[in-house]
């Protein structure tokens, strides 16, 4: 059985991961669409910036977020003065840190899914009276659904496991920013913490596996429903 502290860490992790995924989803879809369909100056630079959190030490984006959004930082001070919003050292900051770190994992599969869709399908829709928005939501999004699901699950899973950036930006505050990985880290540094740390390790492994299995099952089902299994012309 889990202790109240462990349940709190689990609940917080799920909340942070869900919000981070919700934050990444619209931005990831929009950016993936632009990257898949358009050529423009600075595209390579934008691509590098999107992928950067994957290769940087996680503490670096976390520290940069703190410099930018801390109450003394240019954006953080403005948010506090104008709206009374504090992001650093709150669960909202944990969401932002997770979203920044998980965003590249959302963009990769969604972008690939968009690239596999023949643009003439959207053109066909517009010649049948659909506006570009309608074509996007009735043709493009359903066809990209397996990639969108895969990206969302990867984003969620990465957010569940986020540690370095969260630690640097929002610290390790029980009940506010202490997610599963931070709780495990904390338990490993107190006497007698091995047993609860191990329980949370099992729980983390189980959650990640469930998320990945769910991703595969949902993606395969979506692919079957979209007729991808036997129609390779879109690949």
């Amino acid at each position, binding site marked *: 059985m889990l202790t109240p502290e462990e349940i709190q860490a689990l609940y917080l992790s799920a909340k942070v991961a869900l919000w981070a995924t919700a934050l990444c989803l619209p931005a990831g879809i929009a950016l993936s669409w632009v990257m898949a369909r358009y050529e423009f100056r600075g595209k390579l630079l934008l691509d590098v910036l999107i992928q950067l959190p994957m290769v940087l030490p996680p503490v670096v984006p976390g520290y940069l977020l703190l410099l930018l959004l801390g109450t003394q930082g240019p954006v953080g001070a403005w948010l506090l003065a104008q709206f009374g919003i504090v992001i650093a050292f709150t669960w909202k900051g944990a969401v932002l840190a997770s979203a920044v770190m998980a965003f590249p994992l959302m963009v990769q599969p969604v972008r690939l899914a968009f690239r596999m869709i023949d643009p003439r399908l959207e053109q066909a829709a517009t010649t049948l009276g659909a506006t570009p928005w309608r074509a996007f939501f009735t*043709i493009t999004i359903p066809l990209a659904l397996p990639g969108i699901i895969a990206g969302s699950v990867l984003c969620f899973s990465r957010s569940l496991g986020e540690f370095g950036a969260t630690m640097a930006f929002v610290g390790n505050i029980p009940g506010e920013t202490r997610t599963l990985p931070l709780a495990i880290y904390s338990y490993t540094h107190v006497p007698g913490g091995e047993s609860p740390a191990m329980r949370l390790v099992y729980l983390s492994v189980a959650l990640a596996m469930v998320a990945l299995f769910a991703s595969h099952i949902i993606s395969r089902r979506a692919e079957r429903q979209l007729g991808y299994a036997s129609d390779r012309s879109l690949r």
Partner: protein
Amino acid sequence: MKVDLTFKRGEFQLAAQVELNGGVTGICGPSGVGKSTFLALLAGLLRPNTGTLNFSGVDLIDTQRDIFVPAWKRHFGLVFQNGMLFPHLSVRDNLLYGFNRLNPNERHLDLKTVTALLEIEPLLQRRPDQLSGGERQRVALGRALLYSPRLLLLDEPLSSLDDRLKQQILPFLKRVKEETRIPMIYVTHAQAEVDYLADRVLKMEDGRLGE
């Protein structure tokens, strides 16, 4: 319809100055001379560099006055080379994609009439990946017809089919011509197809359209 358009993309140039009336106009020419580009310009999928396009007295394009009516407002049907059926929708939903967006008073044909005309009733519940090449093209044609287009553009609709299937589909196209009376522009590199279907044949060579 009065067309006076120029289009340039890299080395490729297209110039079309022609007046088209009802019936079926065939546009014949070898691959790569700009036939599909011409249809895409008429459909509103590409913007010309200069020129005008007037259909039934309404300017759809006038580059000098910055007029460009987009594809979804032109009400022209376009049948693509390989059908371009939506793979996630059933044949029925493909057929009704444009039809459902029309006001009832704009619908000149119904599902029953079109499926009977093209003999595709047994296919309605199938997915596009369960259709043969000929069936796909008939469904694509039906989808465009159900949108009750003011003009039907056909972009090499038979080029991906073998000769046996072409012979099966050409009579359907003739039936569509005779029974719907929708003006059509039929683009192909096969002279025999336009000889069979078209009332008037234009030639396209090196991006230039002429009699």
